[in-house]
Structures are given as C-alpha cells and as structure tokens.
C-alpha cells in the first residue's frame, strides 16, 4: 500500500508515458563515444549554472570556471555598467589563458580594473574590449576593435548565473528552466549568504551521481549506519516513498517528507543533534521566510521536508523545510570521471549556537556524500566490466533517473540528426 497518493495512471513513471517502464540501458554512462557526443549536444548547447551573483559583489569582481565538458575556461565578471558578462578565458594575441594564478588549470577569483595577459601584457576592459597592445606599432594594420574577448551568453535567474556556449542559442534562460524554475521564483536565495562549499573528484560518469541524488530509495539502506539503530530499523522497514514527482521538459523534481527537523521523538536522533537542535535536515530553528513560492511542497503535505530540483544537465537545487539550500553541480572530466560540487547556503548565523547548528548540518551532509561517492565508483567499474548484464530495471521511485537518461539520449540523438543534415566542410 502506498503511503502517499500516486497519479491516476497508477505510477509516477506511467504518468510520463514517453519514459516507458522497460529496463534501462546504461551504455550512456560507460561509452567514451557517447560522452564526446554529450559534450557537443548537451554541455556546449544548454544553459549551465556557474555561480551566484554574491560571488561578484562589485564592479571588477570576477571568477574563472573550468568547463572541461565544453572544452573551455571562462571568465565571469561584473562589468563597469554593473552587468554580469562572461568571456572565453583566452587572450586574442596568441591564445594564452588570460586569467589564472600559479596553476593554469585551477580556478581563481578576485577583483581587478582590467584583465592583463601574463604573456605580453595585452589588456582588456571589464567589457572585454582590447584596450592596450604592447608595442602596437610592431603589428600590421591592427585595429584593436577587431580583437575583443570572445563573449559567452550569460543570464541570471534568481541570483544564479548561467552561461550558454551556443552562440546561436535563442532560448532565454527563464524559458529553458520552464515551469519548475518558475515555481520557485521568489524564494529568498539572496538571504542565504553563509556558504560552505565542498568539492570531490568522483570516479564515475556524471549522470550516476545525479542518479544517486535524484532518488531516496537508497537512503534507508546505504545510509543505515548513519542513524541511531532503532530509527534506522524503522526507516528500512518502511522503505521510501516520495510525496510527489514533477517533470517538465528536460528538468525534474522530487518532493520528500522529512520529519527530522525537529523530530517528533527526540530519541530518534543522536545526542549531539539533541543538544545542537540540528542534523541532516538542517538546523531545527531555521529562519521564517513566510509563505513559500507555489513550486515548493507541491503536494501541500504537512510531512514535507525537502524538495530536490534537477535542472538539466548538471545543476540541482535542494530547498529544505528549515529554510536552507543545498546545490549540487556535476562537471564531467571524462566519460567515467567528474568533479562534484556541493554547496550549503544558510542565513548568516547570529551567534555561536547557530553557527554550530549549521556546522552539524554541513558535516552530516559530508558524511553521507562520502558514502554516496564511494558507492558510485563501485557502480561505474561494474557497469564497465565484461559482465553480461547490460540493462537495469528502475522502480517508480527512480522515475527521475529514467527521465535523466532519456533526456541525455534525446539531446544526443537530436544533435546527431542535425549534424547528419549539415554537410561537413572540408
């Protein structure tokens, strides 16, 4: 018997008939060739979140972002007019990487009045215009106006900065994020300026980590040892059911219960959680932001605890009931490796008590993520093995995984059809 109502079709999966119910082929997660197609079809064409506006507090604030999946590095900067701009991180003179510190492959950030190349001191304004050429008279008919930095489409949604590497893209960001994005507009993300960010190099295809965080079916099992034993037994007997799932275009969301902040029974939680009034679901005494945007807790269930939004391809936003936010990014570095970023956003703590409550939520997240990350490598190696097991049944609580792989395959397939029509230039 389901604890929570499912759609009239009998399951969430069948509510979205294009997804089918058959076992899923995971070839898309182990094929170097498929990954090369994903780089073109997905990461070079869709809107990608690269940061938040708070990272660029004033004119001249900038950060760089390495995006291996799109074969580039970019500079994101707040220009003189206060607008945010993005450029490919390459000097127009001889192709040197323009902004970096000590290690060319590492990301950096700071504030500057202009960008100066380390190689021959060519300078660019914050708007990307070439403003100075060392020994300009040595060059032949050089018009500086012909050599601005190569710009990248950039747009901001709810304080999140996105870029799109397809110069022919005509889909505005807000339209791309669709109904699910629209549904959480107005959430006070800008109030959550206390940031803890983590990074991990993970030995799996990027989609496998999204798989892990787009379902909670695994939680009572893989993370059983995280909870006190009576609670752990109860969770695993009950299993997991979401309150609701939502799919719109390439994006998805899962809405989940979460009775742990605060728990009904204090014996359910660990001693340190009782003293600090915090845990996996966050500090129990979070800020009151009043009424939530309509996209939060779509089932309007009193047991609601967390909504996880999966914005294709590689950005997740988790909104927790005690009003803190966790974002996930998955940046592919090859078909079977990626860099995972997990960032926790809280309101700035007013005192040490609140600071410690947030610390407990953050490090609890870390311990769960360590178990998740390690399990992914175990999955990747076996998917790649010669074992004659190639397709896998996905349950109804795994509908977002089915959707993710379906979407990735659809983007690649559409790209292949388009490029097949375009004659290759010699």
């Amino acid at each position: 018997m389901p604890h929570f109502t499912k759609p009239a079709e009998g399951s969430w999966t069948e509510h979205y008939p294009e997804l089918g119910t058959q076992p899923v082929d995971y070839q898309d997660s182990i094929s170097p060739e498929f990954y090369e197609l994903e780089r073109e079809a997905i990461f070079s064409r869709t809107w990608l979140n690269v940061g938040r506006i708070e990272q660029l507090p004033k004119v001249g604030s900038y950060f760089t972002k390495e995006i291996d999946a799109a074969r580039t590095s970019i500079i994101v900067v707040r220009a003189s007019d206060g607008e945010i701009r993005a450029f490919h991180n390459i000097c127009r003179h001889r192709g040197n990487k323009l902004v970096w510190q000590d290690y060319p492959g590492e990301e950096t950030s700071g504030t500057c009045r202009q960008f100066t190349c380390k190689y021959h001191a060519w300078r660019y304004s914050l708007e990307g215009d070439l403003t100075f050429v060392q020994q300009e008279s040595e060059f032949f008919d050089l018009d500086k106006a012909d050599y601005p930095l190569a710009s990248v489409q950039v747009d901001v949604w709810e304080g999140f900065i996105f870029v799109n590497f397809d110069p022919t893209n005509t889909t505005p960001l807000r339209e791309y994020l669709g109904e699910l994005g629209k549904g959480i507009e107005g959430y006070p993300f800008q109030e959550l300026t206390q940031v803890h960010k983590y990074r991990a190099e993970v030995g799996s295809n990027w989609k496998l980590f999204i798989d892990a965080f787009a379902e909670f079916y695994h939680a009572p099992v893989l993370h059983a040892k995280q909870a006190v034993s009576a609670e752990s037994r109860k969770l695993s007997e009950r299993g997991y059911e979401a309150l609701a799932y939502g799919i719109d275009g390439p994006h998805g969301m899962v809405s989940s219960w979460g009775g742990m902040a605060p728990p009904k029974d204090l014996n359910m939680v660990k001693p340190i959680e009782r003293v600090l009034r915090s845990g996996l679901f966050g500090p129990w005494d979070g800020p009151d932001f009043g009424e939530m945007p309509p996209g939060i807790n779509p089932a309007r269930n009193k047991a609601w605890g967390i909504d996880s939004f999966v914005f294709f391809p590689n950005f997740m936003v988790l909104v927790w009931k005690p009003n803190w936010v966790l974002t996930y990014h998955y940046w592919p570095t090859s078909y079977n490796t990626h860099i995972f970023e997990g960032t926790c956003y809280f309101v700035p703590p007013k005192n040490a008590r609140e600071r410690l409550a947030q610390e407990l939520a953050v490090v609890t997240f870390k311990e769960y993520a360590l178990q998740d990350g390690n399990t992914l490598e175990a999955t990747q190696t076996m998917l790649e093995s010669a074992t004659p097991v190639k397709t896998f049944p996905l349950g109804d609580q795994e509908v977002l995984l089915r959707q993710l792989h379906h979407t990735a395959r659809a983007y690649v397939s559409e790209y292949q059809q388009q490029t097949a029509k375009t004659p290759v230039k010699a």
Partner: protein
Amino acid sequence: MPTPSPSLPTEFADLEPYADWALQGEGARYDKRLASTMDELQAFYDAAFPRMEAAMSYLDQYSLDALPDDAKHLLWLYCALITASFPVEVWRQPRVPDSGASSFDAVLEPAV
C-alpha cells in the same frame, strides 16, 4: 621555556588537555579525527560533550565577528566535537562505513 598561555577561556580550563582540537577549518578537524584512535575520540567526547551547553552560553555573549581569540578556539573545539561525534555516537570507527578512499574537501567555508 615560557609556559604557553592557555588557549581557551579560563572558564573552560578543564578542556585545555584537548585544546589541540581547536583547529580552524573543517578539513583540519576531519584529518585529526582520521588520525585518532577510538579511545582518543571517546576521551575528547567524554570531556567536551557535557560542557557543550555551557560553552554555547559562554560564546553567545559575543557577536560572531568580534570573538576574542580564546573564544574563537572554544568555538573551533566544538566544531571539532561535532566532527568527532559521528564515530563516537554511532559508527565506532573514525571513518564513515563504506566510504573507502573517497574524499570530500571543503573549498569555501566561513572564516570563523
């Protein structure tokens, strides 16, 4: 050699034997946990846990951006207690079960 001055507020002199846990940065606190035995983690927990409510009341008299050094150390010691509490309260081993060699590194966190 001069005796080093106590690093924690005098009200918490009883925790001075564990002052080496007062480390800035989650990564440093996590590394110390992995380098500790369960006996060491248990001893730190047994000494510091019962004093946590008192420590929070003490720290709450200050604004977070104006913590004196000794109070800052006390705050970090309790951040470390959080890190040390997982093995003591649940796992009985310094590393979370089934995490193998995976790592998860703090790249940005509050200064205090």
